[in-house]
């Protein structure tokens, strides 16, 4: 877990600055060495948002700050940020330099907060954890240091039909914008009001302020983000319902919706169950019509289609895609690789979840943050038929070596543009199908 790794598929703690960039009109302020922002920008690409990337203020630690500390420099940068940039929320993130030097950023930020500034501090030195974990640190810090200031106007659990949703990690999940939008659309189909908190479907900081009002929380994740749900339960007594992976296609989307529906009813939400069930039925029907129409192609296309897949992704996508491809597309998941550095305590439940995918086959599952090693393992494997690899840009070269089909669906990937596409939900399943077979058919010239 802590050894040398090749081809990292995630970045360090300060990468969670992208969770700030994903909040409309919020700005990350980096108290870090000069390259941190550029590294994160380079990892995610096309990820500047409102005030990320080259716009983000940064103290750019030099030798002087390393020796004497950087608090004065940070004070100056924050003060002038208010003059130069028009932002609704400022989140100060520390890098390795500030972390090792031991600057007391929390106290400084508290001074600014005392002057009425909407500002938050989070410790995110790169050696602390990766961005999957740091996302929760950022969100919890905003809840504690910002949302907490507005309790008077936002009574705890005062809206029965409102939920906070925690699912895709901004930017680390290339489809985060589309996914969050689709979860929102689906749950609103029941009559719920959904705070997605990040991206264009969020109302920005006004939505964050209303987090306490929610009746309960929805967590869609194999492991990351769970500390947020735990924190809110502790802080506001909001219970949460936990779906273990991204639901892709009809089976899992329906299971997800029914789980949330049942939970909402248990929690006393004002929902007409018959309407909700009808909504799910209509969604499924529209999906099934497409699959019905497509089946002949999947079954009969004589020039070759992939029959098995290796996925290198985070745990949520490995679970979601494996189940979907097996049951709803007919591509058999062979060895699967989870490359998100899943903490050990979650690994057993993720394995158990994958076992539910099939009672007649065992899908080998390997947790391996060293994606270079995962690739080497795939190089040694051989299965009959045409293979498909789903992973990050790094895996395009692997697929070429193995003469497999390839779908870029994970960070980092310079080979694919994703804007607001979703892979979650019924429509997400259809889009995965389009993308896979689009790539396959493009090989015929």
């Amino acid at each position, binding site marked *: 877990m*802590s*050894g*040398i*790794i*090749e*081809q*990292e598929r995630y970045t*360090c*703690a300060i990468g969670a600055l992208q969770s700030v960039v994903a909040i409309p*009109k919020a*700005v990350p302020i980096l108290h870090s*060495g*000069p*390259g*941190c*922002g*550029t*590294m*994160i*920008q*380079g*990892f995610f690409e096309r990820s*500047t948002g*409102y*005030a990320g*990337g080259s*716009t*983000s*203020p*940064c*103290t*750019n*630690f*030099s*030798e002087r700050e*390393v020796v004497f500390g950087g608090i004065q420099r940070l004070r*100056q*940068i924050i003060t*002038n940020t208010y*003059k*130069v*940039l*028009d932002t609704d929320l400022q989140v100060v993130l520390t*890098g*390795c*330099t500030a972390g*090792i*030097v031991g600057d007391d950023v929390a106290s400084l930020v508290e001074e600014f907060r005392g002057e009425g500034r909407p500002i938050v501090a989070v410790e995110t*030195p*790169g*050696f602390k954890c*990766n961005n999957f974990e740091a996302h929760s640190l950022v969100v919890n810090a905003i809840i504690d240091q910002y949302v907490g200031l507005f309790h008077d106007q936002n009574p705890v659990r005062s809206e029965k039909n409102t939920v906070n949703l925690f699912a895709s990690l901004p930017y680390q999940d290339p489809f985060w914008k589309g996914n969050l939008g689709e979860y929102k659309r689906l749950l609103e189909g029941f009559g719920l009001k959904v705070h997605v908190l990040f991206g264009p479907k969020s109302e920005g900081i006004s939505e964050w302020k209303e987090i306490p009002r929610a009746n309960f929380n929805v967590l869609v994740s194999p492991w990351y983000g769970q500390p947020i749900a735990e924190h809110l339960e502790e802080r506001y007594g909001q219970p949460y319902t936990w779906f273990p992976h991204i639901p892709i296609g009809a089976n899992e989307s329906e299971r997800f919706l029914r789980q949330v529906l049942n939970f909402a009813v248990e929690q006393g939400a004002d929902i007409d169950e018959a309407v909700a069930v009808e909504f799910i039925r209509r969604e499924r029907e529209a999906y099934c019509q497409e699959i019905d129409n497509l089946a002949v192609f999947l079954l009969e296309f004589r020039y070759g289609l992939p029959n098995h897949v290796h996925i290198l992704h985070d745990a949520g996508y490995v679970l979601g895609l494996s189940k979907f491809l097996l049951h709803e597309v007919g591509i058999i998941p062979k060895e699967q690789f989870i490359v998100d550095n899943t903490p050990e305590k979650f690994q057993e439940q993720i394995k158990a979840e994958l076992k539910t995918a099939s009672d007649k086959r065992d899908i080998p599952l390997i947790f391996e943050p060293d994606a*270079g090693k995962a690739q080497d393992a795939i190089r040694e494997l051989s299965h009959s038929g045409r293979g498909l690899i789903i992973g990050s*840009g*790094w895996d395009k*070269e*692997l697929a070429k070596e193995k003469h497999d089909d390839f779908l870029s669906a994970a960070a*980092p990937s*310079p*080979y694919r543009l994703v804007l607001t596409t979703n892979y979650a939900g019924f429509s997400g399943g259809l889009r995965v199908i389009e993308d896979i077979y689009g790539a396959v058919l493009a090989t015929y010239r």
Partner: protein
Amino acid sequence: MSQVNLQVPDVAIREIRLNSITGFQGSAEELVQRSRCGLKDKNRSFSQCLGCSVSQAACMVILIQDAAVISHGPVGCSSCYHEYAFTYRVNSPLRGVEKPTQRKIFSTNLQETDTVYGGAQKLADGIREVHQRTRPNAVFVLTTCAAGIIGDDTESVCKEAELELQIPVVAIFCEGFRSKVWTTGFDASYHGIARKLIKPARKRRTDVINVINFWGSDIFSEWFAAFGVKPNYITPYSTVESLAWSSEAIATVQACPTLGSYLGAALEQEYGVPEIKAAPPYGVAQTDRWFRALGRTLHQEERAEELIAAKKAEYLPKIAALRQKLQRKTAFVTAGAGHGHALLSILSELGLQAKGAALFHHDPLYDNGSEESDLLAQRVKDYGDVPNFNICNKQEFELVNTLNRLRPDVLLARHGGMTLWGSKLGIPSLLIGDEHFSMGYEGILRYGERILETIENDEFVKNLAKHAVNPYTKWWLSQEPDTFLDGSPCE
């Protein structure tokens, strides 16, 4: 006099070695003059994310065909290197690499406990593992802020590994906090390469010239062929072996003097390869000088004159025709130091008026100490002064402010991200990544055609500007661009 010292493990940073600066507001001529009398840097009381030495150091070693690279630090410090893997693959046809192999890039993935107990053992184990997994012909170890501050003895670890593994294991000291001039990262890699990889020449090869460059198009092969010589492109797409014998070339030329400054000087000083001091061939006047310098070095002065005459006969009339169309248009340039000076020369050649420039840093002189290599001085001499000359290490807020005031007809950029702001203001913006594209007489024409096309096809930027999101405050846009720049330059 020379600051090249291969006896020590780390390179002296540019601020100390060359007296390079990252803060200045004035005119180009003023900057050139002050550069000769002890230029002083200015600090900023507001700043945005800079580039970092490690990325610059990394690109010069990751693209070596048969080496492996280890970033000694937390996993984030190598996050953007996948972009170089992409570059290597995509540009390989330009350098005749038919089967580009996967780049071998690792991180020692330092954790919190390593910052307490040190990461040296992890690095030592890591180097052996990388060797076993990839069998490289050399391993490069890039240091980071965390590794530097906790005080890991990277040099000793690499030395020991080198003895054991019998391949070069090169420590490159490029911690981001050490320098505000991120081109120091290039120097760091070159320093390691010159110390550990390059071998004393066995003979002098009169048919090979080193070209220190990035990964641009191969224009030098054709130019050199006229003189019966071939380019040895370094360091991208070179091999450990071809780098080792770069000491045998007859000369070294620079594609960008700020890039190759240190390696050019090291090759001359330590290995006896003369560096052609003439600044790279951008603009007619400088292209004349460059070909003549090349001819002198190769003792083929007449050949050089023939070539200059033939190329001028072919291209000057075309450039003149293009100039008619671009006459009196205004331009603003934002780029790294060397290439920014080049673009300023070219736009004058094309009849455009330079309204100003924002360049990322300034080296008063390069490591060779020669005024001949100073592209900005040549530019001022050949075409006159440039007003609104701003040195800012990619401080976007200053650029936005300046562009908003000057509103040029076109923004010419090199380095990602900056064209966005031209476009948001409705200014047609052009970025050419390939630094060889605008070289030579033919390059002026090529570049001019792209400028014309950019100015003519402005529908996209005009539309973009209508709906552009702007996070900068009205207050800031009404201040002078150097509001946050303090200190005083030498008088």
